[in-house]
């Protein structure tokens, strides 16, 4: 087993341990409010995992994860608002809509390199939000749409969201272990070299972009019935900022970074909110500091620490 495969497995197992802890959390965390906070962090974790696939692993700077979540949520919301269709049926429609838009956008922009992807996705996200906000007759504009709930109480949502995060994580692990994972990282590390070795880079980039959009869309479809109300604010650039900060703080291009980052950043944000609304300033600063000085994020720092501990090197090498 190669070194990178070992690392991937360690990250994956680590993420499962953390998700198991989250599963046990309601035993001690009985506050409905804080259970809601964890549900929303899992919603962000899904987006962060999707974003990490296309940006962390494939190197394509997508600045629209929140917009794709908004697409998913509106898929559910519009079906139920106009035709009274159950949110359960809205989920596949929302995911397909996000994946479809991802495919079209990806086909246009992914043949280009560098900053073009970031520019286009950011413009797309802002303008889609504007269109939804202005199309009052279809979407009720900034008033938002009411979405019927599907469960009574918080815990069913909690475990549904958690189960989906676990399933997506398993799927992503399988994907990253396959040849596709290698292709994606080859594209990220050097497009020219990858192309010269026969990797069809545009095809792999587009595939990663579509899968990532679908995961973000899925997050939105699950969030809609939980929140009960969706509005164009879901697609705010600030929410994309949150997703980016979660992955950068947790560790970009790792299996575990997005999950750790989302749980830490969102719950820390809620705690900081009680002392004053400064959490967004803190996270923005952390993004800059991490990107500038600790590129591996928290996970990278932990690995660095583990490597420096005497006697831990051998176990570290075996496990990760």
């Amino acid at each position, binding site marked *: 087993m190669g070194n990178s495969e070992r690392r991937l497995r360690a990250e994956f197992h680590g993420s499962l341990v953390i998700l198991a802890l989250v599963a046990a959390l309601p035993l001690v965390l009985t506050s409905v409010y804080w259970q809601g906070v964890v549900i929303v962090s899992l919603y962000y974790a899904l987006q962060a995992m999707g974003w990490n696939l296309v940006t962390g692993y494939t190197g394509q700077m997508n600045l629209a994860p929140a917009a794709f979540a908004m697409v998913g949520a509106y898929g559910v919301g519009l079906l139920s608002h106009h035709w009274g269709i159950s949110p359960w049926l809205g989920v596949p429609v929302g995911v397909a809509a996000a994946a479809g838009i991802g495919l079209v956008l990806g086909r246009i922009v992914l043949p280009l390199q560098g900053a073009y992807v970031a520019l286009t996705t950011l413009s797309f996200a802002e*303008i889609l939000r504007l269109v939804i906000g202005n199309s009052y007759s279809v979407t009720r504009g900034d008033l938002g749409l009411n979405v019927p709930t599907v469960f009574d109480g918080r815990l069913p949502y909690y475990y549904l969201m958690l189960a989906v995060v676990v399933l997506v994580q398993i799927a992503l692990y399988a994907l990253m272990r396959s040849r596709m994972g290698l292709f994606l990282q080859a594209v990220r590390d050097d497009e020219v070299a990858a192309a010269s070795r026969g990797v069809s880079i545009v095809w792999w980039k587009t595939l990663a972009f579509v899968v990532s959009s679908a995961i973000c869309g899925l997050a939105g479809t699950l969030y809609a019935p939980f929140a009960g109300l969706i509005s164009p604010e879901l697609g705010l650039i600030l929410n994309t900022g949150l997703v980016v900060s979660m992955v950068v703080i947790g560790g970009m291009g790792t299996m575990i970074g997005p999950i750790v980052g989302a749980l830490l950043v969102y719950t820390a944000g809620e705690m900081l909110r009680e002392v004053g609304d400064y959490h967004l300033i803190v996270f923005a600063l952390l993004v800059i500091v991490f990107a500038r000085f600790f590129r591996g994020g928290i996970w990278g720092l932990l690995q660095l620490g583990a490597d420096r501990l005497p006697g831990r090197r051998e176990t570290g090498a075996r496990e990760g």
Partner: protein
Amino acid sequence: MLYLDLTVTGLMTGVFYALMAIGLTLIFGILRVVNFAHGEFYMVGAYTYTLLSTALGVPVWLTLPAAVLVGAALGWVTERTLMRPLYAGYSSWGLMKDEYAIIVTFGLSLLLINLVDKVIGPYPYRGPELIDTARVHLGPVIADGHRLMATGLGVAVIAGVFAFMRFTVAGKQVQAVAQNRLGASLAGIDPGRVSAAVFAASGGLAAFAGGLLAPIINASPDVGVFTAVKSYVVVVLGGMGSVAGAVVAGLFLGVAESFGAVFISYGYRDTFGLVILILVLMFRPQGLFGEKGRSV
């Protein structure tokens, strides 16, 4: 008459798109990165102009240069602290250059938006006008006095940028670094200093646009987000790195929006930029004036 009116209004908006886009395109030319905090430099300019004038009562003819200075200082600090790793001895980062620059400037954008939101507040501020004259008749076209003055200043500054790039040694140094960083440094030009100066100029230009538009845009913390999106469209349309392209594309977008708002839909006028962006990416990704990029 309507066509003339729409063209003039569109060109007057386009001047500000051009001002914003010139800064972005200059940075792209020098460092091959896009500054995602560019809209926030504009926002800071609008706030500096407005708050100095209204809260401290400083005359507008002093607060406008002050806004430019604050924007330039912000640009300079950004370059020195966050952009230096792109070229100063972090060669192993070469492959992650785009990602780093985007994430770090995007983080800076979020930081500035939230700082202003917390320190000054989320409420919009309206800046004072440069002159009192409400309406000016220019032959058949009627224009708002402040808007006319602001547009005039904008045109003068754009002309100044062209003259600077063309006729001064410093301007030629900027072009040299944009063409070949290593070659320029062999010829005795310090690319680091040029990068810092260009970032400062870019921040100053964005803040200048923000200050000039302060009475019109009602500055709020996120006022720069959409303006930045428009500048990206303009820079891609004009060709990344081309100053002339940025000006032509800026004026074009202004006119296109002004006509589209009347003939297509007012509510969706801000979406025309995206349509243009998508069309450019599909059919002419190098933009109107850009060089064809490397392709794999």
